[in-house]
């Protein structure tokens, strides 16, 4: 089975090298999508000797993910895992997240920080995330325990079917909607998120959640 790890990265040179070196111990097909970073993200990814796709200008995380997924599909990927560059996901948990795909139970596996053993989540962040869950539930009809987790795995069928047209952060909700629209089977698997000062500073703010809602509503109107 060809397992590809796709990592969207925008100005992540503080953590990227560490994340890549850990990933390389277990996985050989790693794709970093440098989303027009202005720091040394691109150079560090090159030094790590992984595949680096470079967006000439910043297009947002959704766009970067779609680029990586497209490329992985072209390379003949059977399973595509999306992983964050800021070090909040655990490499050891990739095995757990792809297991249901290998066993052909489902098409998509979504990481959830609220299932099973709970990660220590700052209260304010928890409120935002819970709001996102309700919001995603309202617009897609799918009730998840964690709607905005970047740790996911798709089989080839799902990766081909899911179309990400939201370039920015609203892609998380869009992916859920696409799962529903394409009638894909999915499963949530508990994952641990390590919150560091750095990953929190890179994460979504309260205000960003309004921007995400705006992006989703706008797409709904013009479709």
């Amino acid at each position, binding site marked *: 089975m060809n397992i590809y790890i796709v990592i969207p990265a925008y100005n992540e040179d503080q953590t990227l090298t560490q994340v890549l070196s850990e990933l390389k111990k277990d996985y050989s097909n790693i794709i970093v999508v440098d989303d027009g970073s202005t720091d040394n993200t691109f150079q560090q990814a090159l030094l790590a000797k992984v595949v680096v796709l470079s*967006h000439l200008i910043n*297009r947002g995380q959704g766009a970067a993910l779609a680029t990586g997924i497209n490329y992985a599909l072209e390379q003949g990927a059977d399973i595509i895992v999306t992983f964050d560059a800021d070090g909040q996901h655990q490499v050891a948990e990739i095995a757990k997240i792809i297991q249901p795909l290998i066993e052909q139970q489902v098409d998509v596996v979504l990481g959830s920080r609220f299932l099973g053993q709970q990660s220590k989540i700052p209260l304010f962040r928890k409120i935002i995330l819970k709001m996102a869950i309700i919001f995603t539930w309202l617009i897609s009809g799918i009730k998840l325990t964690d709607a905005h987790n970047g740790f996911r795995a798709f089989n080839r069928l799902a990766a081909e079917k899911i179309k990400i047209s939201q370039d920015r952060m609203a892609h998380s909700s869009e992916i859920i909607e696409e799962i529903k629209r394409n009638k894909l089977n999915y499963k949530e698997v508990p994952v641990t998120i390590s919150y560091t000062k750095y990953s929190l500073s890179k994460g979504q703010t309260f205000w960003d959640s309004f921007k995400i809602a705006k992006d989703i509503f706008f797409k709904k109107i*013009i479709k």
Partner: protein
Amino acid sequence: MGNYLIIRIIASVFSIFAIFKVLKKYRDKNISFKELFFWVIIWLAVGLVFWLPRFTTFLANFLGIGRGADLVIYTSIILIFYLIFRIFIILDKQQQEITKIVRHLAITEEERKKEN
């Protein structure tokens, strides 16, 4: 009345100028016939409103709105909203096209590197 004439002339000159612009755009095939039609009607209506203000009053009364001037403002606002909406759609489409180009460049660059 004298002041009103000045306004009328300014509005007419502006309308005629705008219609010429639109016609030129159509000749250069920058806009479709539908768009040409739309804009000529709009600018003719603008000219008409200034020369025959009573016409708007008539229309307004017909639609149950008190004054002609109110009708003009209502329709203008609706039109502006519509145009802004159109611009938003065009912008969104362009954003997606930019992403497509950026994505294509990123992937072909990597494939080119691999071949060498």
